[in-house]
């Protein structure tokens, strides 16, 4: 173990330090804390928090159920709208959704802790692996779902609940999509994503085929032959490139790969990290990569974003969280060159200004950041879309019900426009597409 090892190295910190660093970001509320937190809810009329939730969870009602000593009933209220409520309680940027809308945020700057209360309730029910819903009588209809991320799982669950048989085709080895591979480890500890998948398919009628990729192992035409309907929830498999000299040097890689590596590591002491880490980007992925680099023991982790802080995709809360963990954030600078002999050594950045028209211009002034590792977090892109599906602004075009341009094919999650790259939005889209598919299959739509 040596914190000061040059280059990219594992075991910068002891196993104990790593365990502490990667423990739960927000520890669960205990009964007393939950009771006090729930007592703060005003039970607003037509509640703004619910309106701010992409899945429209009846938040005042579930909090009232917690307050009256019925956390499992609260969980049922949550799951009725959002079957991924357990994960959302952990990863939702509540500070820009329900908690931002909470009237007590306006009143006192201290919203009701909706996210943590949601976790309290959902943990309670999931803790005993109780599945709150029962499946309707089998309909004989079969639906294929491509991708087992939040959109695919939410869609599959709602279809299964209605009595349809669902097969999920998952390209990777484990189900869960970004819940399993894309979320910072300290936001979802102790294998929660897999536990959640196991709990969710407890409804019955869902088969998950992992290691089966659309385009490689199965085609959309195959699926349309075998199934009555198809839902595409494949996410964004590609990563945007920087397009600057030196991008192919060793040590430069997509941030999502680093994040996945940490999530999949059996032992965090085996995950190598640079002594000097640079992350290019301004969204949640950039934050998650930089923060986890620090937590693994990087001496310096710097996020560089090309526009001003107000344009960053990461919320102020997340940026403060990163700053508290020692991450530096540099704004209004863009990478212009990556330097190094055999591998990355430093990155040259140019300061930028944004014109009143929103165009980005370099100022000509540059600076160098030493770097052993550079993570690209400038967005992912859609790849592997089957033919016949219309694309709009780089994403699958869908209507309000999630229908694509192709008959019997629906889509949702990050692969559709407009996607917000949020678990909760993907969940809502998967759920709503399932309702549309159900109407189609039963002739009600």
């Amino acid at each position, binding site marked *: 173990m040596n914190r000061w090892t040059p280059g990219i190295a594992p075991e910068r910190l002891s196993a104990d330090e790593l365990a502490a660093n990667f423990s739960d970001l927000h520890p669960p509320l205990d009964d007393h804390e939950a009771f006090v937190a729930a*007592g*703060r809810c*005003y039970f*607003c*009329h*037509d*509640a703004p928090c619910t309106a701010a939730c992409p899945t429209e969870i009846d938040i005042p009602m579930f909090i009232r159920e917690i307050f009256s000593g019925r956390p499992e009933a609260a969980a049922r209220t949550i799951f009725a709208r959002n079957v991924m409520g357990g994960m959302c309680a952990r990863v939702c940027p509540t500070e820009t959704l329900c908690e931002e809308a909470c009237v007590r945020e*306006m009143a006192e700057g201290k919203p009701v802790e909706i996210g943590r209360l949601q976790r309290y309730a959902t943990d309670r029910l999931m803790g005993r692996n109780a599945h709150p819903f029962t499946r309707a009588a089998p309909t004989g209809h079969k639906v294929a779902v491509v991708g087992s991320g939040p959109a695919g799982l939410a869609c599959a669950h709602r279809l299964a609940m209605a009595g349809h048989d669902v097969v999920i085709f998952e390209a990777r080895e484990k189900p869960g999509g970004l819940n399993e591979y894309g979320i910072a480890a300290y936001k979802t500890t102790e294998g929660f994503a897999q536990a959640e998948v196991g709990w969710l398919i407890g409804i019955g009628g869902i088969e998950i085929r992992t290691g089966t990729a659309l385009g490689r192992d199965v085609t959309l035409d195959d699926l349309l032959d075998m199934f009555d309907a198809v839902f595409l929830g494949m996410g964004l498999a590609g990563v945007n490139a920087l397009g600057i000299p030196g991008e192919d040097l060793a040590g430069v890689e997509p941030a999502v790969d680093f994040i996945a590596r940490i999530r999949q590591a059996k032992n965090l002491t085996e995950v190598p990290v640079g002594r000097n880490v640079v992350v290019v980007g301004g969204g949640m992925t950039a934050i998650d990569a930089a923060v986890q680099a620090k937590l693994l023991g990087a001496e310096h982790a710097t996020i560089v974003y090309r526009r001003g802080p107000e344009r960053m995709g990461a919320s102020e809360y997340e940026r403060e969280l990163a700053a508290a963990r020692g991450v530096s954030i540099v704004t209004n600078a863009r990478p212009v060159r990556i330097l190094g002999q055999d591998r990355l050594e430093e990155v040259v950045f140019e300061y930028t200004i944004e014109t009143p028209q929103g165009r980005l211009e370099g100022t000509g002034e540059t600076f160098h950041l030493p770097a052993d590792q550079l993570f690209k977090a400038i967005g992912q892109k859609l790849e592997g879309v089957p033919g016949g599906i219309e694309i709009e602004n780089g994403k699958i075009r869908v209507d309000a019900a999630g229908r694509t341009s192709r008959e019997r094919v629906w889509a949702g999650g990050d692969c559709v426009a407009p996607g917000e790259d949020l678990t909760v939005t993907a969940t809502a889209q998967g759920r709503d597409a399932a309702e549309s598919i159900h109407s189609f299959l039963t002739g009600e739509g």
Partner: protein
Amino acid sequence: MADLRCNFVGIKSPNPFWLASAPPTDKEYNVRRAFEAGWGGVVWKTLGEDPPIVNVNGPRYGAVHGPDRWLMGLNNIELISDRPLEVNLREIKAVKRDWPDRALVVSLMVPCEEQAWKRILPLVEETGADGIELNFGCPHGMSERGMGSAVGQVPEYVEMVARWCKQNTRMPVIVKLTPNITDIRHPARAAFRGGADAVSLINTINSITGVDLDSFAPEPTIDGKGTHGGYCGPAVKPIALNMVAEIARDEETRGKPISGIGGITTWRDAAEFMALGASSVQVCTAAMTYGFRIVEEMIAGLSDWMDEKGHATLDDIIGKAVPNVTDWQFLNLNHVTKAVIDQDLCIKCGRCYAACEDTSHQAIAMSEDRVFTVKDEECVACNLCVNVCPVEGCITMRTMVPGEVDPRTGAVVSGEYANWTTHPNNPGAGCGTG
């Protein structure tokens, strides 16, 4: 600096805050510490005849909580002092000797026989105590033995015992009244007819604080059974205020000394009791919840408020609100108000809207962007929106000035006072004139 000195039927104390007869005043240790903390006086927990009573050995208290376990109401099934009479008397004497400037009143409860009172009164007098308070209030345990509220519920007994005491002691006699009665004025009148110097009220209210839904037993529960206990604390304050006011404005008892009791938690509560006619106040639940130190805030708060308002002595505030307590029939029906929502203070919770739309007069409008406004043409000024709003001062009532047109009724607001007794809808209003 306001003068908080209190002279209650000749019993002097440096401030009007006394601890009520209850567990906090059960023994010397507590009372000394209370005086050290600044309490102006105590009413020593009720003495009875030997052999001492016994208490249950299970829970004596039950509670009603608000959010965050705020103790709104407390109930108890404790009886009077369970210590030997001689021990209590010895301690009372010692404390009074060391704290001559504080009020020390002794609460008493003995069987409803003159001899019993004749026996105990000289013993109390010998301690140097300042006065006695007759416990005609306890609603549990003792009442089943013909004491406590069993006496307080029968005005004739109240009068009789008060008279015995006055005839057998030189000490001032305060009669503590039970609220477990239909009309508090009757026992109050009886007490004064019997010669009592003052009344104190309220004692606790018969209550069951809850039911255990696993054992189906009332709480507090002793071995699977429960009984009604005496309820007190902030939840009972409105009941106590009304009863104090009823006595303060009754023709027969108007101006008679009252010691106000019932949920007093802050200086403001105390000031309210005094405004309704109490000339001293007694506190129990607040001390049992927070400890003796709360009296510091009570003293400072009352003093600051009196200074701010220019009230020099307690006499300047005692009874000040009594003339404004009236019967419903005399309320001015020409007084028209409308709710007004301060948009700068509004946090857009919509509780006013839900309350008005679902349960009242559909007089609040809600816009798409959650701006809540009062529909004057529907608003009857019921005040429910004010009461359910989480933000103090956000919704207020505006008084319409004479000459304005009330959009609800279309009538011009009159500056004239007019009440039910003369209202055309009152079948009795025309009697004697038509």
